[in-house]
């Protein structure tokens, strides 16, 4: 049950009501005060003060002053009239409630309106600000445009002026020769001076003089100066040729054509491969120094191949591979040996391994790749796997389209395939 505050005192004028409400020690804040047109409430739990006003007041302009343990209300009457009492005397409970509810509703509505109004003003302000900035930017842009336009016009005028000057220069051509012969000496002198001083090309001032005397076919002075010059011209040069060399490159393509990244990779791989030596050398300790060098072994193998000692060549390559299994040429050459020895599966294996090691495909390892494809193709054909063989031959042709032998062999295989297909 709230404690009613009843010790209020009031006085009035025609237009306003002054109400003083002592608070009995309670502290009041604006939130505790609720006022609508005809209903006033102060609620500071547990204290409560409530009044149904005699007549409506203007609640928006009325004020409440909190201080000194007291709230001092200044309520402005909606209609200037003297009130009989502060509150409505015979206010029934229902009326009270009704009024209360109305008051609350009205207050709510007002609050809503206020927020709406605030929102609208905020938007207005934003829009205004935006427009203002846009105007500023527009002004700046215009200023720059104007500057540019002025430049343009100035420059166009200067151009016209220069052009007209030249037209005038033409007019002056018809002035009597006396004046011209005078001027003829000057430009020649001037030209000489220019050359000896090696200064910059003269500015427009002096160029005008040159214009007058050197332009056009009218006026004897210009022909005169030309004749002088012709006499000074040296004869045509003695014919000679200078031979040039162009910058060599590891790969014969200019930077724009090269696939530098791939070529670098290939070079790197080759360098790596050469450096590698397989570590498992325990059984190889009794070999001579040169026999531990894969390149030397490769050469040995090549020589043996050339003399027809295919088994020996295979042995040499085998040893080389054990020392360094990253050199594609070893596999390539061993494949050739196996072909000769009719170890066709081994030939295929070795050619495949060689092709694997010959990546990335660059112009530098073209020859090796062609050979690998041809050898593998041959092996396939000898195993009567003609389609696989043809695939390899066509791969070889793609790399080296101008090779007639490969073309011929490819043709033969095609015929063979067609023949077997027809007969089956």
């Amino acid at each position: 049950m709230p404690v009613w505050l009843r010790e209020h005192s009031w006085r009035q004028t025609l237009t306003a009501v002054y109400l003083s409400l002592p608070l009995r020690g309670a502290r009041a804040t604006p939130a505790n005060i609720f006022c609508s047109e005809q209903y006033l409430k102060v609620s500071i739990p547990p204290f409560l003060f409530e009044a149904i006003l005699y007549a409506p007041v203007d609640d928006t302009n009325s004020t409440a002053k909190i201080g000194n343990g007291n709230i001092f209300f200044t309520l402005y009457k909606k209609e200037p009239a003297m009130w009989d009492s502060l509150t409505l005397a015979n206010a029934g409970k229902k009326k009270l409630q009704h009024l209360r509810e109305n008051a609350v509703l009205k207050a709510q509505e007002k609050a809503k309106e206020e927020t709406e109004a605030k929102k609208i003003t905020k938007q207005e302000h934003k829009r205004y600000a935006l427009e203002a900035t846009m105007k500023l930017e527009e002004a700046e842009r215009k200023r720059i445009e104007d500057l540019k336009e002025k430049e343009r016009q100035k420059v166009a005028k200067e151009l016209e002026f220069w052009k007209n000057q030249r037209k005038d220069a033409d007019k002056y051509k018809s002035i009597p020769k006396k004046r011209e012969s005078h001027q003829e000496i000057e430009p020649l002198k001037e030209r000489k001076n220019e050359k000896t001083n090696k200064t910059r090309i003269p500015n427009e001032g002096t160029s005008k003089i040159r214009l007058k005397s050197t332009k056009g076919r009218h006026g004897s002075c210009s022909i005169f100066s030309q004749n002088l010059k012709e006499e000074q011209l040296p004869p045509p040069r003695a014919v000679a040729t200078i031979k040039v060399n162009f910058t060599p490159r590891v790969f014969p393509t200019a930077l724009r054509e090269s696939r530098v990244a791939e070529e670098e990779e290939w070079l790197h791989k080759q360098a790596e491969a050469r450096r590698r030596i397989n570590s498992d050398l325990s059984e190889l300790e009794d070999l001579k120094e040169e026999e531990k060098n894969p390149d030397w072994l490769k050469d040995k193998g090549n020589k043996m191949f050339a003399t027809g000692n295919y088994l020996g060549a295979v042995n040499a390559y085998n040893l080389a591979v054990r020392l360094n299994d990253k050199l594609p040429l070893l596999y390539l050459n061993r494949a050739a040996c196996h072909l000769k020895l009719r170890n066709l599966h081994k030939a295929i294996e070795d050619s495949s391994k060689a092709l694997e090691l010959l990546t990335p495909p660059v112009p530098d390892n073209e020859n090796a790749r062609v050979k690998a494809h041809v050898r593998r193709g041959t092996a396939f054909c000898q195993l009567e796997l003609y389609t696989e063989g043809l695939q390899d031959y066509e791969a070889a042709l793609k790399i080296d389209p101008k090779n007639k032998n490969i073309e011929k062999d490819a043709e033969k295989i095609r015929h063979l395939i067609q023949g077997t297909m027809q007969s089956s």
Partner: protein
Amino acid sequence: SAAAGPERPQVVSHVQQTLSYTVFDCKWVPRSARLLCLGSAARGTGLIQLYELHGARLELLREIEKPKPIKCGTFGATSLQQRYLATGDFDGNLNIWNLEAPEIPVYSVKGHKEIINSIDGVGGLGIGEGAPEIVTGSRDGTVKVWDPRQNDTPVANMEPVQGESKRDCWTVAFGNAYNQEERVVCAGYDNGDIKLFDLKTMSLRWETNIKNGVCSVEFDRKDINMNKLVATSLEGKFHVFDMRTQHPTKGFASVSEKAQKSTIWQVRHLPQNRDIFMTSGGSGSLHLWKYEYPAQRSKKDSEGSEMGVAGSVSLLQNVTLSTQPISSLDWSPDKKGLCVCGAFDQTVRVLIVTKLNKI
């Protein structure tokens, strides 16, 4: 950035003219407000168009059609009275035309087996001394120097050694023509080679390789003791060589700059100030540069030989005019700051660069 900063030179686009053909080269006619456009018409013939600048537009004065598309042209070897145009075409022919009577060329020779990519002339227009000569560089790998007084054979021929695979020559330029005897030709090739040929001694004076194909070379002045050489290349790089001091092994000192990602098609020095030059790019942009000399242009190396010191290059302004490469560029020798450029969007533009006096 192309800001309207008060003191920076501005590149103002004065006139734009759309053409109905591909323009490969554009040149001002000396001592006039007229310019030439050279190119290839859609039906595979060559075109020369002569325009005159009238206020804010270009007026077509004359159109000349020739059987083969024309790649390049120069007024460099002609006198100011005659103003004959020398052109190189797609078939390797060098012709010199009198534009008043263009039906028959004044000089004609089938100089090369393939397209003439670049042409330069020296000894004419009252600039420099010595005989007027024309140099042409071709895709057939040779560089030839011609004298209009001698028919059929070039007076100098720079060709690959027997058996050497050829590289396309993309650009040529004359230089060092400060007296009657001295003259050099600089040639740039598609593999990045730059070669300097001395015509007085008929020998190769210097060569180097800048890795990327050389699109354009130019000396800052043809008619002085060679001072600076700018070479532009693919992938947006250009090099400025200081040509005053040649070291016996290291050659010429240089500074290089990467301007943009795309090819730099042309470099042209301002006729009125040899330290300012403009480069044109594959992205349709123009860059205006200024070269600054170092405090000392040469110094001694550890063995006591003189070697050059390169300076520095600073960007004055840049502007993008087109979406297609700007393949040709020419400054007017008569009006400072006036230039014309031709782009592969079939447009030729007349530009004015302002405030060059304040540099």
